[in-house]
Each structure stands twice: as C-alpha cells, then as structure tokens.
C-alpha cells in the first residue's frame, strides 16, 4: 500500500515503489529494475521537485479549468442536476518518436485495408467470394447496411475519422485491441488535455520536444472538404449532433467551433428534392458535407430507425443521389465488428499483400465449436465480449469474476455463441498517475490515436490515453470509471533524422 506523505515543502519522494508490482505489467516510466526510461527523464525529474501540495494544487487548477470550460457531462439527479468533469490526470504519458513512427505506419496500413474492405463488401464482395472472411459473418452482422450496397463514396474513404484502441502488453509491444470506425469520440479530450499539460508543466514541455496535436481541427476540416463533390468549389460543412443532452456534446460543439462550421441538429435540417438544407435566419442554405456524430440507426427515419427524432427524413436518399456526403459513411461499423476484427490481419494481407505492422490480440471466435469449447474451459483466464456491444458493456473479465458470474456467463455463451468472442486477459501497461491528489501510483492505460482519411490519410501525432483509475482495474472506458491523460509524442532526435 502507498504510504501517507509527510507534509511540508520537501520534494516529493519518488513514486511509491510499493505501488508497483514488478513483472505484472509493462510500465511506461520504469524499466525493469526501477530504472527510469530515457524519454521519461524530464518529467520524472520535474515530478521529483514538486511537493505533494504543489501537485495537488495543479490538479485542482486543472479540474477547475475543465469545469469552467464546460468540459463536463451532466448527472441527472432527483433533486438537482449536477455537472461533473471527466477525471483527468495531469501526468503526461510519453511515447518516443521512433516507436510512434511504427504506430503511425501501422495505423495507416490498417485503415487503408479496412476502407478497401468496406468498398469491397459494399461493392463486388470479392473477399467473400474468395472465402477469406466468412460471408455470413459480414452479411449477418447487425452493423452491415444493405442500403449502402453500390453507393458511391468519394476516394472510397468510408471511415473518415477512426479512433483505434491500442494497448501495450507485458512484452512491451503495442497491439490493436479494437478499431472504432463508427463515431469515435475523445479527440476533444486529447486537445483539452494538451492545453492543460502545457499550462501544468510548461518548462518540461518546452525541453521535451513534443509534437503538436493542435492541427487536428483543420486537418479534420480538410478531410471533410476533400469528400465533397469537386464541382462544389466551396463546400459547406456542418457537424450533426444529437443535441445538448448527448454525453459527447461538448466535443461536437468544440470541433464545430474550432473548424468554424455550424453545429446542426436534425431539426435544423430539411431535405428538399434530394438536397440537404439548414434553416438559417436568412432562409435555407445548402449543406455539402455532414460530419455526423449520430449513429447510423438514427440519421434518417425513412431509411433506418423510424422512431428516431435525431436525424433528418430523406437524408439517406440525398446521400445516395450524391448531393451530400455523410462522414463517416453509414455501415462502417461492420468493419470494426469484434468478430470481423479477428480477420483484420487476413484482410490486410488480402488487399495490400503486406503483413500487419500492428498485431492483433489473439481472438477466439465462439461461433467456431472448437474455439467455443476452449473458451468455456478457460473462462477464468479470458475476457469475453459481446460482438455488437461497446463501451465496456456486456463483457466478462474472467480473472476478476466470481465462479458464479462465470457460470452464469457460460450459460449465456452456450445459448448464443455467435454473439461472443474471447481474448486472453492482457495486463495493459501502466503509467504513473496522481491518485487522491497525493500519491503517484501506476494505473493501467490504453492508447487511442485518431486517424483521418479522405483524399489523404493522416495520423495526428498524439492520442487520448485512457486510464483505469481504480487500482488494478483493466477497464478504461469512461462509462466504467475511466479517466484520461495527455499523451506526448516526441520528435525524433535530430541525429536520427539526418
């Protein structure tokens, strides 16, 4: 257990050694034997000069600034509604330049292949004919949209904004845990955390040579504009939000503000003769590109869910007619399906004739009887996930579950094996975090970089690092008590470049 700190102005002792369990997980800051990794030296040195009070003070300033900016989600209570900030940790997570370069190449390769896969399955379906991916797995997936068959998508860029979840296992290698190709969120936290980190550790930031993330909004705008029809010289872009009650509303408003484009809701839009218009004070104004932050199911009650009040009637027909571009394209979810995930290395090989740069996590498909029996026999070692679910719902973390929970899950699993996959429990890498405003302790983290794909594919040199704030927890989702921290991607040293 972490010891209580002695108060006073003495420099903070080194992060509580006892809190680290050597050999259990890869730590981002400490190498084996307690040596500080080279790229962590500046921040480690800075932390050693700050008293616990000074750290707590900075943490408070940070939280206050988030509250003031309205980077909050609303908790609706019986008596009063309150606003909470997303827990944010002030100690940055650092990734060396060379390591990032490999991640970047791997992400671009992966998104390229997944976009080719989407273009194929919504086109000629060659990959299904060749039997590389089982036909029923794709066409039977809930996220497969028959309506998208043979729709023209500019640059064949179906997923324009992708947020992949990477994790670093015990061996220290990054692997892809999940691809998010629907409406990935979190990029505003990447930017807000960076803003906060610059103010918290200005001196360290300056000498660390961190690559900037601040270009994300204009890269996003350029990506969206590149999706517009070329005969529309100055395309009107808009961000479509479900509205102020959505938990990611802050992000929608933030991106719209930084891109300088209108933030629209379904009720602001009208479709007339297959053109999409927004209602302005001076009449109707045509929209060319919609960056939608509304799920497929809800964008058009005429095409998808009829009970949706969030979308626009007729939007999908306008899209099919080529008069508006919806980003991400509807139906991209089929490529980040947890069962299709198992085939991504094969998909990369099939389209690009390359090996995947970033490996997958070993995945057992419960639809295969042999793999199902292996999963059932090893439930205490595996993480089992529902194929269609996300956000940390509907999953079983075997080693952390009781025998009773495992038995109950086994029954569910046998009843509907096709709906589940299983993966070994990975000890995510740990990074130092300020806990309870006093102690620096390791917590498990993942990494969500953001990839943009339109005419070009670009990766922003930074990411959202999500943190499982509960001690020992491996679940980083914000809906399950996770927080986040800034991620510093360092420039490569000059000598390495020349």
């Amino acid at each position, binding site marked *: 257990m972490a010891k209580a700190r002695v108060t006073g102005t003495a420099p903070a002792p080194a992060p509580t050694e006892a809190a680290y369990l050597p050999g259990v997980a890869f730590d981002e800051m400490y190498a084996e034997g307690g040596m500080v990794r080279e790229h962590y030296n500046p921040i480690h040195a800075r932390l050693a000069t700050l008293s616990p009070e000074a750290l707590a003070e900075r943490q408070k300033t940070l939280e206050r600034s988030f*509250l003031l*900016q309205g980077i909050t989600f609303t908790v609706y209570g019986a008596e*009063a509604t309150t606003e909470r900030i997303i827990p944010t940790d002030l100690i940055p997570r650092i990734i060396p330049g060379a390591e990032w370069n490999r991640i970047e190449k791997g992400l671009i390769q992966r998104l390229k292949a997944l976009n080719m896969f989407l273009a194929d399955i919504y086109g000629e379906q060659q990959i299904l004919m060749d039997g590389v991916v089982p036909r029923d797995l794709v066409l039977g997936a809930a996220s497969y949209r028959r309506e998208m068959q043979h729709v023209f998508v500019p640059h064949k860029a179906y997923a324009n904004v992708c947020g992949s979840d990477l994790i670093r296992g015990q061996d220290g290698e990054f692997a892809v845990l999940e691809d998010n190709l629907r409406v990935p969120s979190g990029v505003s936290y990447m930017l807000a955390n960076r803003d906060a980190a610059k103010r918290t550790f200005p001196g360290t930031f300056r000498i660390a040579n961190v690559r900037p993330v601040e270009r994300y909004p204009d890269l996003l705008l350029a990506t969206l504009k590149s999706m517009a029809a070329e005969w529309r010289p100055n395309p009107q872009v808009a961000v479509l939000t479900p509205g*102020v009650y959505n938990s990611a509303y*802050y992000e929608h408003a*933030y991106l719209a*503000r930084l891109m300088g484009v209108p933030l629209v809701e379904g009720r*602001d839009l009208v479709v007339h003769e297959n053109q999409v218009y927004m209602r*302005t*004070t001076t009449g109707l104004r045509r929209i060319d590109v919609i960056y939608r932050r509304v799920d497929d199911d809800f964008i058009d009650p005429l095409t998808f869910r009829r009970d949706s009040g969030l979308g626009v009637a007729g939007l999908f027909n306008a899209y099919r007619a080529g008069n508006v571009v919806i980003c991400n394209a509807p139906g991209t979810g089929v490529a980040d399906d947890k069962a299709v995930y198992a085939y991504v290395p094969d998909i990369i090989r099939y389209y690009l004739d390359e090996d995947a740069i970033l490996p997958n996590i070993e995945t057992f498909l419960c639809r295969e009887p042999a793999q199902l029996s292996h999963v059932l026999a090893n439930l205490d070692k595996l993480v089992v996930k529902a194929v269609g679910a996300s956000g940390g719902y509907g999953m079983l973390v075997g080693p952390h579950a009781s025998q009773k929970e495992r038995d109950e899950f086994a029954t569910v699993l046998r009843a509907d094996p096709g709906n589940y996959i299983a993966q070994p429990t990975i000890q995510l890498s740990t990074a130092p975090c300020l806990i309870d405003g006093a102690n620096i302790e390791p917590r498990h983290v993942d990494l969500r970089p953001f990839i943009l794909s339109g005419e070009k594919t670009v990766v922003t040199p930074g990411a959202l690092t999500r943190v499982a704030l509960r001690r020992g927890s491996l679940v980083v989702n914000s809906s399950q008590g996770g927080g986040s921290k800034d991620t510093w991607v360092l420039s490569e040293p000059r000598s390495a470049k020349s």
Partner: protein
Amino acid sequence: MMLARVADSLYWIGRYVERAEHLSRLSDVMLNATLDQTDAAAQAAYIALSAVGDRDQARAAKPYEAALALVMDRKDPNSVLMSLALARENARQVRDQITTETWERLNLLFLKVTADDAPQEFERQSSAFLHDIIADLHLFKGAADATMSHGEGWRFLLLGVHIERAQLIARLLEVCFGDTRGRRVTDRLALMSLLRMACALEPYLRQYTAEIEPRYILDFLLFDEDFPRSIRFATARIEEDLTSLARRMDSHGRAGPERLAGRLKARLQFADVEELEATGASGLLATVTTECARIHEAIYETFVAYPLELRLPA
C-alpha cells in the same frame, strides 16, 4: 448567415440575463429598503413584488422570504437562479457560436448560483451575493461586447436584452405611475428605491439634482435619450438591431419586425411628459408592452419559425 435555432438561443440568452439582472436588483433594493421599518420600506416592497407580478401582498411583510424565493427558487422558472440556468443552457446549445470568454463568464456565474452552498451564502450575505450576480452579469455583457463579432449573433443577443428591458421598465413604471392602481407612490425614499431598482439613481441625480419628483422620474425613465435603461433608449436600440438584421435579409417586400420597431420608436420619440400628465402614463406603457410582444412574434415569423414553403429555392 446563422442557424435559425442559434439566433433563437442567442435572443433568449439576452432575455434571460436581463431578467436575472433586473430581478437581482429588485431583490437587493427591496432587502436594503426594508431594513427600515417605515412606510417607505413597505412601499418599496410593494413596488418590487408588484413589478414581478406577485399579487400576494402578504409577502411584502416578509421581504427576506420573498427575496429568497425570487432569487433561489428552483421551481419558479422566472427566479434569478432559473433565468441564469436557462441562459446558460441556451449558451451551451450554441457553444460553438459564442466566444470562450463570453461562455466562461456565464458558466462561472451559473456554477456559483447552483453550488450546494449557494443558499447558505445568500442567507449569510444576501446583499453581497446579489451584488456579485449583478457585477458578474455586467462582466458577461462586457465580455460579449469586447470579444464577439458585432454581427448577426451579437445583434440577436442585444435584441433579447433590449426587448426584455423595455418590458421590465414599463412594468415597473406601470406599478408606480399607472392610472389603474389604487396606490400611487409619492414617498421620497420609496421613489429613490424605485430609481435604484432601475439602476438610475446616480444618472438621475446628475440630471435633475436631488429633486426627486414623480414627474421627473417618469420623464427620465421613459424619455431620456442617453440613459441605457430608459424606454426610449431601449426602443431605439431594438429598432437599430432589427434594421441591422433586416439588411442581411432579402425581405421579399414583407413588412418585418423592423417596421414595428420603427413605429414604436417613433411613438416614444414624439411623446413627452406633458402629454402623459394630461392623459396618464398607462396608455403609453401598455403600448410599449404590447408592441414589444408583437415585435417578439414578428422576429419569430421572420427569422426563426418561418414557413418553409416561402423559402424553398426556386
């Protein structure tokens, strides 16, 4: 070019912040005046509560409770707290359209009045609490003025402020000088409270010196050209804001809200206090209230809730 929904929200932010400021000031002046156990104090409480439409005059006997309800009542959509909450909710819905500086002022104020310890804070130091709300609202307006583009969005914000202000001041004057009321305010200290409620005491004194006369007050709060809380000033701004907004429209030859605003402005321009002495103030004050309501409707018909078939592309 701006979304109709956004214009709507900005307009309401303006109305709510003006309402919150006015109510805070009424409460503050009432609490201060009623520290004295005099007839003037009772009149001040009567003015404040009548001006917010509280018919239950028994509450005037308990000014602290009445002020607490006016400011902190979460169930009353017109309380200061709820006005600020609604202004902030509207601001959140158009967060992409207002500057960070403007947003932060309003958000900070909202967090302050909705904090768990806010009721205790009000109890401990009501006057300081109300004073801070008013000062924070001035900061909000200042931040909007200094950091927002003085374009369409800013005009809608101001339009809300000025329409609300004209109606609130008209209501306040009606309570004191209307013909239908049984009770006319004549007490000097009560009249000073009235001036304070309109934030007008100091400018009034510079104009008329310390001669506090109902006739002068009426003249000042209705017809002064330069005082920002006079009705003439507010209606001139309404007309100016709408003319500026109408310039951006291709108006298809329809009579818009700017015509109504021009007519109201002219009505105020050509009336004077002698005329009111002959006919009574109620007629003119009623005109201000109903015309502001018609302008409000015309703004909706023109900019926000217009029928789509009139605006479809040819």
